[in-house]
């Protein structure tokens, strides 16, 4: 072969290979509950939200300003990992995912226990990671991470939101109680709520607290105890089948008529429960998502695309997952633009991610805490009402609390901020 033909052959092979290399997808690991009790209310909506967004990003069908194809021009390839099971197992699964797939990013995590178990693995392997839910404030308050981001507000905002709303509606409230699942999320939620109640009304303590076993499904004794104790309000962070069983068992016994129920994750069950969830129950959904989402063009697109594809309305885990991926796209695109094109490195994306603010499907996300790695958002809460004529689940009396009203300021630890009476909180309410 002559030198000329050799060069021509090499040039041809480079020309043929170049587009292939350019099209190598970014590998995204998505961790969520695919089996177990948390799959129905959380895991599957989160998977759907992620799947929908990845397809929209790949096809460039997201609305403006996100209508460009891919992340930094790269297509995405999703690998799903089941989050169900013991935390130690999830840590192993995540390590296996990293060994097998070497993902460019890992996105997801719903529950606190599994997420806390996986974080050391993600950081040790320097994997760019975006937590979509995993509400515990301990993530960034107890440790420092270089490549970790969380695009939803931590769960402290839920307790503060519920306490502010309840006391605004019932300023003369004399007694309250709680029933929460006996695991990390239930205990943290109850602690945040009671601390917020005491911050707003010093010395105001709960008259009773119930911590039934996670997944027990039988709440007859707890309901009797609440009926006997007679608190004017009862807070619960129950979720999933536990929440549905609690509602099914308490409704015939009229617990809701004796106490003002506040369900901090009630939004996830409102469509499934429908008329079985009594009117008048206060519900929230871990931020302005689902029925509480702001009516923006982005939200209208997301809601329609989700309903068209899955035949159910999206609940907050779907929004959380979608906004986590959207944040990753914003960071990738920003990092690519900063270097004048091409695929940015993990460190460049991490730098670009820190402190960004972007419009997502439910609300605006500000990565304003924990050195720009933790999001703060406004929160939302309202009163459940089943529209019998239309046969649809709705909310009324919705209140949005600004991010600076329900989240601790940068650098403050949640518990200390609550114990100090929430200093610096700025609450100019909007509707």
């Amino acid at each position: 072969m002559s030198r000329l033909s050799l060069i021509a052959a090499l040039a041809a092979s480079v020309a043929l290979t170049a587009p292939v290399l350019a099209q190598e997808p970014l590998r995204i690991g998505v961790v969520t509950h695919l089996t177990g009790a948390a799959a129905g209310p959380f895991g599957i909506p989160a998977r759907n939200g992620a799947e929908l967004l990845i397809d929209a990003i790949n096809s460039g069908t997201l609305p403006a300003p996100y209508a460009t194809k891919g992340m930094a021009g790269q297509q995405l390839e999703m690998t799903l990992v089941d989050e169900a099971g013991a935390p130690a197992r999830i840590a192993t699964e995540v390590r296996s995912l990293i060994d097998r797939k070497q993902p460019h990013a890992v996105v997801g995590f719903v529950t606190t226990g599994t997420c806390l178990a996986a974080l050391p693995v993600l950081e040790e392997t320097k994997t760019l990671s975006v937590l979509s839910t995993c509400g515990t404030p301990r993530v960034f308050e107890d440790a420092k991470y270089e490549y970790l981001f969380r695009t939803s507000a931590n769960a402290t905002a839920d307790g503060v939101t519920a306490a502010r709303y309840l006391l605004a509606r019932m300023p003369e409230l004399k007694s309250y109680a709680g029933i929460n699942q006996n695991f990390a999320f239930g205990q943290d939620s109850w602690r945040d709520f009671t601390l917020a109640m005491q911050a707003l009304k010093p010395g105001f303590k709960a008259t009773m607290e119930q911590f039934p076993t996670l997944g027990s499904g039988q709440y007859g004794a707890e309901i009797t105890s609440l009926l006997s104790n007679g608190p004017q309000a009862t807070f619960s962070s129950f979720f999933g089948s536990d929440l549905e069983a609690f509602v099914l068992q308490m409704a015939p016994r009229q617990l809701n008529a004796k106490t003002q129920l506040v369900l901090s994750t009630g939004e996830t069950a409102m469509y499934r429960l429908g008329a079985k969830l009594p009117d008048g129950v206060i519900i929230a959904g871990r931020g302005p998502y689902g029925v509480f989402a702001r009516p923006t063009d982005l939200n209208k697109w997301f809601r329609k695309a989700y309903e068209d594809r899955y035949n159910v309305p999206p609940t907050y885990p779907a929004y959380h997952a979608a906004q986590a991926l959207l944040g990753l796209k914003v960071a990738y695109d920003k990092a690519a633009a900063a270097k004048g094109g091409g695929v940015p490195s993990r460190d460049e994306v991490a730098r670009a991610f820190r402190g960004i603010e972007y419009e997502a499907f439910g609300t605006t996300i500000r990565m304003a805490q924990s050195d720009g790695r933790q999001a703060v958002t406004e929160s939302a809460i309202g009163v459940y009402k089943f529209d019998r004529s239309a046969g649809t689940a709705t909310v009324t009396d919705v209140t949005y609390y600004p991010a600076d009203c329900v989240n601790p300021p940068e650098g403050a630890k949640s518990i200390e901020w609550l114990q100090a009476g929430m200093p610096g909180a700025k609450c100019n309410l909007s509707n």
Partner: protein
Amino acid sequence: MNALVPILIDGLNYSAWLFIVAVGMTLIFGVMRVLNIAHGSLYAVGAYVAATLIGRWFDADLPAFGSFGLIFASAIGVGLVLGLVLEQGLLRFLHGRDEIAIVLATFAVFLILEDVVLLIWGTDAYPAYQPYGLLGTSSIGGIAFTNYDFSLVVLALVVGGAAWWALNRTRMGKLLLIVIHDREMAQALGINVRLVYPATFAIGAMLAALGGAYSAPMISVSPGIGVDVIILSFAVVVIGGLGSIEGAMIGAVMVGLTRAASVHLAPQFELFVIYAIMTLVLIVRPQGLFMRAQARKI
């Protein structure tokens, strides 16, 4: 109202539920020496089948009280089909093997059935709430209790009474007692133990499925509901003595009343109170409260 009354009511309601879900496990162990970990799956399948049928029944606008018939039909159907399939398709090949091997086999069945449930019914919860409200409520001391919960007590008494009658007053029951007491001697006396086993396993499976089917209207039928049932059933039958039906009843009452007392008086102990009782009983009587003395064979 005095705290004792609600503790007794809630405790008995919970005991009744515990007995119904645990009695099948102890029956199977008593006769077959099989600690059936798949018991939880049979409970779950019973619940799913009942929830599905009840949903369709009410969608078709059929007479509401007919849904109670579906609960029992689901239990019988699931118990017969799965019980016989598991016994004839798997367990009969393991008779005489090490008990640990049999436990592992039933654990494998449990894992398989958990995935089968996901495959058939998916991850969404199945509500079958309608029968729960059909029986109305009763007010005791100003507190409303659902009559469906009380019906569980009646059902538990019927199941317990029927089991006692069947074991002590029927020919088949007496044959079973002989098998429970001494399998080898029963065989030597000409009892066809291999025919007794499928019947026992099917009845035990029916009782597990009945627990699930009757629970379906009270709970949200969703993936994983069988897991806790295994743990609770195991605790109850261990307290009462593996294989003892009266032991299961006493164990269920002990656990139910103690849990209710804990919920009313010291809720922070609810999580481990069941296991505390189990530990205490096992310290005093490692074989459980009602385990029969075993003749030593040489």
